[in-house]
């Protein structure tokens, strides 16, 4: 009885409530209840039938009227909206404005809603990951005045793997006067992506590319210069103009340090709070919108929630699903995957880029692969012996016993065919038994001709650091013996689905950089990853986040029960993990996953191999849950525990990759299906049936496919040919 009186005090009216229920038949029968937490009261709706999530939180209770609404009326309104939302059908809206291509971004920028400068600091935005995209986004949003919380599992933002990019960054500056333009960069990127990217996003990327260079130079990034004092450019694969800006072989490092400096400047101004060695382990959603994250402090094991008005993921790619890749050891899919499990769609997971010139695997103990810049193929010649299983040393194999297969198959492009083609051919040669080296999984990249022609001095000036690196890793001198190379996983084009605003299907969850799927289609061109990360971070998300936040109330219910529940769930699941105490180490199982993925969902895929993968991965998953062995405790620095949490997400992702690859009955870019190739073993696209983005929704029982049809209004779809 006391409770009823209390309800009336807070504005409850039984007649009104009954009328409301009659008016809204979608809402299942139930009662409105008041519950106390501390000294405050909150409205809840409790369903009459006993189902999961029977009690739904509505709003805080207060006496009297605020904004002319009593808390009871507000509770009814929230209830109504809840059921309206849950009944809405999911349609993937790309939100691209319907104006000509070159007007889209400026038009969209003008039409976006703005947040009043005085109100900006009332909004908290979380940025997860502080590589190129994350650091630049956090810094730019902090400059605008938002309250930014940035998270990284590294000790410092400067350790992010963006740092490892060697070659350069593309920009349509046309400083070389060789006919470059925004449209040409757009066209090259769409074509390089094998016509599987969204036109509007790619055009915007090309448009913004020039601003990135301006921004970075102003930050003090020491790009290479000509003697006249102006910026130097070099050429890269997939383009006929010279548009790549570079800082020797360390462009990624210099750009990351630039973004890092912008970020620490904001940290110094107290506009950004940075949380080092914090791993995002879950996303908190309230009424279907992203409202914060759960992190684990890697030093203390503390699991904590951080509420926010919006969440931005800049957590990179998932190449480590193959165990061996050129990604850093800690690169992982956990943030994206856990967001995916909370409702964000995962798009095109099967698109992975395999880089042709990597140092081959030497033994079972190999922990990661090292990339040798693509530029080596300008002067090196790729060959294998003509005889199968030839064990002679390369110097003993005479010229007419060598098969320069790329020059033979592609007379006009020769050794400079795009990455996907070069990689696939190398694998083909090795599969047929022509491979070299102890493992027979390598081909030669020979510099003999160029050394004879121009001298080793010339070669050393051009490639010295790469040759040194090769020597350091393999112990072989590439000036005397040909290099051995083999393809390795390098970049993942797939990622969480985003619209033109870089927001996923889940309101408030934004995804930028390699973590989203948007700009590279089925294959990324060299020197475009840095460009995309920085365009997203510096020039796209700071605008589009305002458009989202302008529609949000600045009140944040930090006491919402979802936060505490989510923290508890994650504590429990870590406890479960630690309690398994089986016999297999994390690395063991990861290697096993890597082998399944590489053999079956790697460079070339077939229905059979994908079905094998779909059979093996679930077994591996159950092996993980029964047999994993994690030493140590939660409340300490425990790298094995970190790795275990990441591995289970990789396992689940691997399954989805295989599923996506199986669904895509065509070959395009980095996705090659053996069933779909021309007579000359080239990739065969199916534009009629597969010109769509495959966005996968996670449900308890299975993955559901949603399609975003790709519209090509400005480029004509054509077959790539490099003959």
């Amino acid at each position, binding site marked *: 009885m006391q409770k009823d009186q209390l309800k009336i005090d807070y504005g409850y009216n039984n007649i009104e409530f009954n009328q409301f229920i009659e008016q809204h038949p979608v809402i299942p029968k139930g009662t409105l209840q008041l519950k106390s937490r501390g000294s405050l009261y909150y409205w809840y709706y409790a369903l009459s039938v006993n189902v999961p999530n029977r009690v739904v939180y509505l709003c805080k209770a207060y006496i009297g009227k605020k904004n002319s609404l009593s808390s009871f009326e507000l509770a009814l309104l929230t209830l109504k909206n809840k059921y309206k939302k849950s009944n809405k059908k999911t349609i993937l809206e790309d939100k691209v404005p319907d104006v000509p291509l070159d007007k889209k971004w400026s038009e969209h920028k003008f039409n976006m809603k703005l947040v009043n400068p005085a109100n900006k600091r009332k909004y908290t935005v979380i940025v997860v990951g502080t590589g190129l995209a994350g650091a630049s986004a956090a810094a*730019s949003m902090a*400059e605008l005045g938002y309250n930014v919380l940035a998270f990284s599992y590294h000790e410092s933002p400067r350790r992010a793997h963006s740092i*490892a990019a060697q070659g350069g960054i593309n920009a349509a500056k046309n400083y070389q006067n060789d006919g470059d333009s925004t449209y040409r960069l757009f066209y090259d990127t769409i074509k390089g992506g094998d016509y599987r990217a969204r036109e509007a996003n790619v055009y915007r990327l090309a448009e913004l590319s020039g601003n990135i260079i*301006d921004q970075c130079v102003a930050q003090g990034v020491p*790009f290479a210069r000509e003697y006249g004092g102006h910026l130097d450019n070099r050429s890269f694969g997939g383009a006929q103009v010279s548009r790549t800006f570079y800082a020797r072989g360390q462009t990624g490092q*210099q750009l990351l340090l630039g973004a890092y400096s912008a970020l620490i400047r904001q940290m110094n101004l107290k506009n950004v709070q940075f949380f080092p060695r914090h791993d995002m382990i879950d996303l908190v959603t309230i009424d279907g919108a992203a409202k914060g994250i759960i992190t684990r402090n890697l030093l203390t094991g503390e699991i904590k929630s951080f509420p926010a008005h919006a969440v931005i993921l800049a957590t990179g790619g998932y190449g480590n699903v193959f165990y061996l890749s050129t990604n850093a050891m800690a690169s992982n899919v956990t943030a994206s995957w856990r967001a995916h499990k909370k409702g964000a769609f995962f798009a095109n997971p099967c698109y992975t880029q395999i880089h042709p010139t990597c140092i081959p695997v030497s033994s079972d103990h190999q922990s990661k692969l090292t990339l040798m810049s693509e530029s080596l193929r300008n002067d090196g010649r790729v060959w294998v012996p003509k005889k199968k299983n030839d064990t002679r040393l390369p110097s003993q194999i005479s010229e007419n016993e060598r098969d320069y297969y790329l020059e033979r198959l592609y007379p006009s492009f020769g050794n400079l065919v795009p990455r996907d083609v070069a990689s696939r051919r190398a694998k083909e040669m090795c599969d047929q038994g022509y491979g070299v080296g102890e493992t027979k999984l390598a081909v030669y990249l020979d510099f003999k001709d160029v050394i004879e022609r121009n001298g080793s001095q010339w070669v050393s000036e051009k490639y010295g650091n790469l040759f040194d*690196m090769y020597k350091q890793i393999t*112990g072989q001198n590439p000036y005397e013996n040909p290099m051995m190379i083999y393809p390795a996983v390098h970049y993942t084009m797939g990622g969480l689905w985003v619209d033109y605003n870089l927001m996923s299907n889940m309101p408030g969850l934004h995804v930028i950089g390699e973590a989203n799927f948007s700009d590279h289609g089925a294959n990324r061109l060299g020197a475009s990853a840095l460009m995309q990360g920085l365009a997203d971070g510096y020039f796209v998300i700071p605008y589009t986040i305002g458009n989202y936040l302008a529609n949000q109330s600045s009140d944040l219910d930090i006491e919402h029960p979802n936060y505490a529940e989510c923290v508890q769930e994650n504590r429990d699941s870590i406890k479960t993990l630690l309690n398994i105490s089986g016999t297999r180490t994390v690395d063991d199982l990861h290697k096993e996953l890597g082998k399944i993925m590489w053999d079956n969902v790697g460079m070339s895929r077939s229905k059979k191999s994908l079905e094998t993968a779909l059979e093996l991965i679930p077994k591996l998953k159950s092996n993980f849950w029964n047999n994993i062995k994690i*030493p140590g405790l939660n409340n300490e620095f425990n790298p094995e525990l970190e790795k275990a949490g990441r591995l289970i997400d990789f396992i689940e992702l691997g399954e989805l990759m295989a599923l996506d690859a199986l669904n895509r009955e065509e070959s395009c870019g980095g996705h090659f299906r053996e069933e779909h190739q021309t007579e000359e073993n080239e990739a065969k696209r199916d534009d009629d049936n597969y010109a769509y983005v495959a966005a996968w929704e996670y449900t308890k029982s299975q993955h559901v496919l949603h399609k975003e049809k790709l519209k090509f209004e400005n480029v004509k779809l054509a077959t790539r040919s490099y003959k």
Partner: protein
Amino acid sequence: MKINLKVWRQSNNLKGQFEEHYIENVSEDMSFFEMLDMLNNTLIEQNHEPIAFDHDCREGICGTCGVVINGKAHGPLKGVTTCQLHMRSFEDGDTLVVEPWRAPSFSIIKDLVVDRTAFDRIMESGGYVSVKTGGAPDANAIPIFKEDADQAFDSATCIGCGACVAACKNSSAMLFVGAKINQYAQLPQGQVEHPSRVRNMVTQMDEEGFGSCTNTGACEAECPKEISVENIIKLNKEYLKHSLGK
């Protein structure tokens, strides 16, 4: 190869000690860390705590890794990070003494992992050019002498690994700070804030408890990016100039 490993073990605030491991079947082609990976795998299987060590890119660029091997930061080779060090650099039967970076400003987190956030705080005190996103002039608007750009680049190659501090008998961070100051000193973009940057970064460096430089040059010799001690000399000059000219 067979390797005798004497490795430093230390966890939360406790006093550390060396632990000995005898490792067989080490392949020459393994990297140093792959050898540790292998040892860790065995340790886990035998229900022992694996050795914690920092590492990430394993390509020698991220600056996360770094241990002292037989008294040499990043091991015996010049201009190479620990992650790029391979076992062929050692002899069969060698004893390797492996320790974390030791410096009062770098506290030990666990085993071989140290806390280098002092570097970030130094950077925070001024290691940037104050430019807002979007407000930049065209990249070619200010030409820069190629020599200046190249020199700025040479300083900018610092990966912030902390080997200079670890190798210095005084645990001085002058090479790290000098490299950052000089990158900006060479470029027109960094000039306006240059005087205050120099003063603030040196003040922060002192506050973090790094020692002073006695020009022994150990930092340059151990730097995996071979950054020159000239950066320290230039830092001295800039500091003198901008402290007196204030």
